[in-house]
């Protein structure tokens, strides 16, 4: 089954990408990290999603995000972050979805 990761920002920007296109994660500073995916238009570049987390909780946020990516929901749809969905609870240590760059 193909799994998809879904992100939506508070400003209504959204992205769904196959988890198989995930390239890696690196911290940016004490409150943000960047998740990299194969470029959505298949160019040799990267599409990124910045995730914001509780200040100082870098490794905890990394673990939380990867627990989400490795989940196996029946429909393959993994909501990693959604700042608009009423009732959605952020992953532990995650505070919001930052900039989505395609």
């Amino acid at each position, binding site marked *: 089954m193909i799994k998809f990761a879904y992100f939506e920002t508070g400003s209504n920007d959204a992205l769904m990408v196959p988890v198989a296109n995930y*390239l890696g994660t*690196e*911290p940016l*500073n*004490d409150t943000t990290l960047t998740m990299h995916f194969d470029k959505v238009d298949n160019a040799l570049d*990267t599409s990124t999603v910045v995730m914001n987390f509780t200040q100082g909780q870098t*490794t905890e946020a*990394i673990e939380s995000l990867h627990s989400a*990516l490795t989940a*196996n929901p029946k429909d393959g749809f993994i909501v990693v972050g959604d700042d608009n969905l009423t009732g959605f609870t952020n992953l532990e240590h995650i505070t919001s979805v930052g900039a989505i760059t395609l």
Partner: protein
Amino acid sequence: MINDVYLYFSDDFTKTKASTQAAAQTITVADGAPFAAMMDGTISDADRTSGKGFFHNGLVSLTMDAAHNDGSADVHVFGTHYGTVADDAVVQISPFSVTYAAGSGTGVFTLKTTSQDPVFGIDASSTAGENGFTLKLEKPYAVDQAIVKPASQLLNIEAVDATNTLLTFKPTTGDTGDQDKVTLTHTSNAHHLLAKSIADVITDARNHGKLIKFADAFNEIYFDGNPAGITTVTFAID
């Protein structure tokens, strides 16, 4: 589908930085390794007392290098939390003892006085040279301090020399001709042990769908008991 294995690597850089010394309640730490940029934002007095902020969250720890308590006029005075502190003792500063504000190219912690907080307060010495502190980074938090790579993006493993092995991954940026490189320094001629460790971590079904700390040099945690004797991790991220 088979779940990927997410490999976590962290660097083993120097974790501490000394403060400047001043005859004041403030403890100033300038930007510079390992704090590429001192933390933004503030820890207010309300944050301090309610357990909020990066200090309470465990990002850093702060120690007084040597308590000055020799009976002279410029001694440190400690709140009850610290008990009786011997002269020249290293003192672990509680997160409940300080507020914080980002400065210009610096981060400034401010000790509460014993008048302000009889439990966690500390009165600094009136002699600047006695007020030496060390800030220690307890978790990686900046670029090139840690990275997670899916095992499926591993391109190859090659020996660099007797004590270094290079793991090459498809680049995080997706750029053609570039790679993400993680170099592991290990016991001499232990390449095969390292390669087998990588193979083990990837092929063991129990690891599928998990984040595995393969070489967390920052915390000296290594996969499978570190059979290759990894001592150093360095990155060259595209």
